[in-house]
């Protein structure tokens, strides 16, 4: 089977590249081995959180950093397109291009963010709280969101909170099950007809407050329910992130995938690439687990398989490898050097990834593979946790790789 570009990995990076290429007329295939890390999405995209100005910090990153390889001017250009790009898919992000704002974490902390979903709470970069008094709601029995943390965090910043629990007979069914009172199952319960009833319950507490905050447990399959709920609630309603799974993350995953398919892309979920055929420094075709001897050929390939969690990298007691093609990996040889004893220090293993040349082409046996690009967290040289750059690297590198392919 023949495609223009085959993308391995169906997360944020893979889908971004897939949509971009398909929009420009390419016939693309995405092979995704299970669902992606978007399922744990915080509700905000980070570009670079080291400074209030995301671009200031980007220009000072090391030369092996993917951002440095992509180049400052390119990053500015790609990043300007991000917000409209998502809007076209039907996902509304808010935020200033040149200035990070703050988002509220599930523990009541504040973290820098570049773009935040418009249904989420966000705090301006100077830290001025937009509310004096808020109603902070949770669903009774939902263990993956704790109002006490948030209330403490808000109180430290002078916001008074009124904490209330919401109980509805329709949710009792979920409580019957000792494990399945999860954000996504609550969202499934709330879908459609129940939104009105939920709004009525929220409004009982919304009268004397500036805003209502609640966990993101609405809008699993689309943003219609979110908009309906916001319209019906008498005060501004803002969502806060929960522990996994992430309702808006899953929605974004689904919308991106649908968009890709509508543009003519083929998305194969639950399949993994097992081997590739190389010829004259080029990747010619790949084979997958589900399709046995069938060869999937393409002019270009993008590796967007993620880091250790998504098995883009695997490790054994002896070392780190890229499991599909055996590409060159930037890592450390001595196992003891992979880690720091304090969990919250920068962990060296987080920087491990596939080696690439200046054009983000993957290296194999110290030579770049002419038509195999890497994008997203499989790239070496960045610690997305410490830099606050995970989503940014995924999107920017995907757009960059896509542009390189189209320029050929």
């Amino acid at each position, binding site marked *: 089977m023949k495609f223009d570009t085959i993308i391995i990995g169906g997360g944020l990076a893979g889908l971004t590249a897939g949509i971009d290429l398909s929009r420009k007329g390419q016939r693309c295939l995405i092979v995704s081995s299970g*669902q992606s890390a978007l*399922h744990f999405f915080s509700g905000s995209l980070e570009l670079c959180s080291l400074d209030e100005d995301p671009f200031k910090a980007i220009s000072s990153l090391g030369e092996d950093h993917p951002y440095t390889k992509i180049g400052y001017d390119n990053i500015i250009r790609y990043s300007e397109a991000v917000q409209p790009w998502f809007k076209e898919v039907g996902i509304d992000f808010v935020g200033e291009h040149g200035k990070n704002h703050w988002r509220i974490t599930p523990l009541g902390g504040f973290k820098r963010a570049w773009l935040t979903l418009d249904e989420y709470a966000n705090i301006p970069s100077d830290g001025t709280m937009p509310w004096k008094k808020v109603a902070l709601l949770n669903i009774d029995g939902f263990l993956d969101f704790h109002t006490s943390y948030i209330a403490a965090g808000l109180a430290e910043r002078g916001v008074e909170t009124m904490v209330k629990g919401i109980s509805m007979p329709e949710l009792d069914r979920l409580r019957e099950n000792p494990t399945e009172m*999860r954000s*996504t199952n609550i969202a499934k319960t709330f879908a459609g007809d129940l939104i009105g009833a939920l709004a009525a319950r929220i409004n009982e507490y919304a009268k004397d407050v500036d805003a209502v905050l609640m966990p993101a447990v609405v809008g699993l399959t689309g943003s219609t329910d979110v908009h309906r709920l916001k319209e019906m609630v008498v005060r501004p309603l803002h969502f806060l992130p929960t522990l996994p*799974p992430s309702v808006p993350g899953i929605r974004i995953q689904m919308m991106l995938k649908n968009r890709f398919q509508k543009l003519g892309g083929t998305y*194969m979920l*639950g*399949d993994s690439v097992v081997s590739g055929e190389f010829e004259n420094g080029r990747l010619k075709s790949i084979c997958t687990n589900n*399709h046995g001897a069938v060869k999937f050929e393409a002019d270009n390939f993008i590796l967007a398989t993620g880091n250790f969690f998504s*098995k883009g990298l695997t490790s054994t007691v002896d070392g780190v490898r890229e499991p599909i093609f055996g590409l060159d990996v930037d890592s450390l040889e001595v196992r003891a050097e992979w880690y720091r004893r304090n969990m919250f220090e920068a962990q060296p293993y987080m920087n491990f990834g596939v080696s690439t040349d200046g054009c983000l082409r993957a290296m194999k046996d110290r030579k770049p593979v002419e038509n195999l690009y890497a994008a997203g967290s499989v790239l070496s040289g960045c610690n997305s946790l410490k830099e606050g750059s995970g989503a940014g690297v995924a999107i920017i590198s995907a757009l960059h790789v896509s542009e390189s392919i189209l320029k050929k």
Partner: protein
Amino acid sequence: MEKNKIDTSFEQCMKCTVCTVYCPVVAVNPNYPGPKQAGPDGERYRLKNPLFYDEALDLCLNCKRCEVACPSNVKIGDIIQSARLKYGNNKPKLRDYILANTDIMGSLATTMAPVVNFTLGLKPVKAVMDGVLAVDHHRTFPKYAGQKFETWFKRHALKKQEAYERKVSYFHGCYANYNHPKLAKDFVKIMNAIGYGVNLLEKEKCCGVALISNGFKDQATRQAELNLGSIRKAVARGEKVLTTSSTCTFTMRDEYEHILGLHNEDVRDSINLATKFIYELVDAGQVKLVFKDDYTRRIAYHTPCHMEKLGWAIYSTSMLKMIPGVDFVMLDSQCCGIAGTYGFKKEHYNDSQKIGQNLFRQIHDYAVDMVATDCETCKWQIEMSAGVTVENPISIIADALDVEATIKANRK
């Protein structure tokens, strides 16, 4: 005597909860512990003490959508099915025996098809089935054909096959044999048109999917071994073994090994779905299909759960898209709720219908002439619940095919 080697893929579970998002049962029935708890979490406890087995695992549909979603390659569905066979209450009901033995039922019923169809449709009979056997009375039973496909094939088609140099073997399965021989005949028609002769397997038994899901492991194993024996003979003759059912294909390729612990790796790649086989020939330019000009239909494709797990919907849909007169619509991949014999059981009927609700609504909204799908039980469920005709892609291709032109195009 050695303990069956346990599947330790549960060790790969990262506790990320992704599987729970895609489980169709969790969404409708709180009594089901959910794939994470029933699968990898529960398995650690069952290894400690079998008393931790929970009979609620019977609520699993075996749709494997948890496995498809899992980013860590945990064989969640297999773990649950294996646990049911290993620890479950192994005293299945008479009802389960009847539902599981699709081929015995089939042989009996085909000979008396008019009587059986009439009887199964009668209200008092349905009431007895509901009350005594706990088969839900809302269910429409699949009709049984008057003549088995095998009988027809031997009488009318067998001789003609000798004319073809290239041959494939056909595993028709229970449905095409007893309920809907037209599908099997359509398959023979297409294969002959593109220049392939069709052989039946020396012996064929039901693939065993219903036996496995109803806890009849020993019988399933015996039938699987018999089928694998026949398949090996066909492969030795140089023939691929084709099917027209995604579930039979999936069961023989994957469940034989994963659930029954049988070795099938020598023939696994030779067991193929007809649409995939034909697509590959067309894609490689070895075969040409010519379609009628006047065939126009708006057709939606429904991805059966086991097709999703196989990852092969791409072949069936690509085939349908080849038909010039087809206005193709892809439905979101979601479970229809029937899951083989699951939806026939009284205790599951309501869940079954709730699971399929979104799908039925989507089909209705698209206002299609017909739904295409590769699974026979999905066909029954959708026809009953969405009130629309459902056909196997093979039948659609056969109907749209200009047989004479195709034969001509493939003549050397």
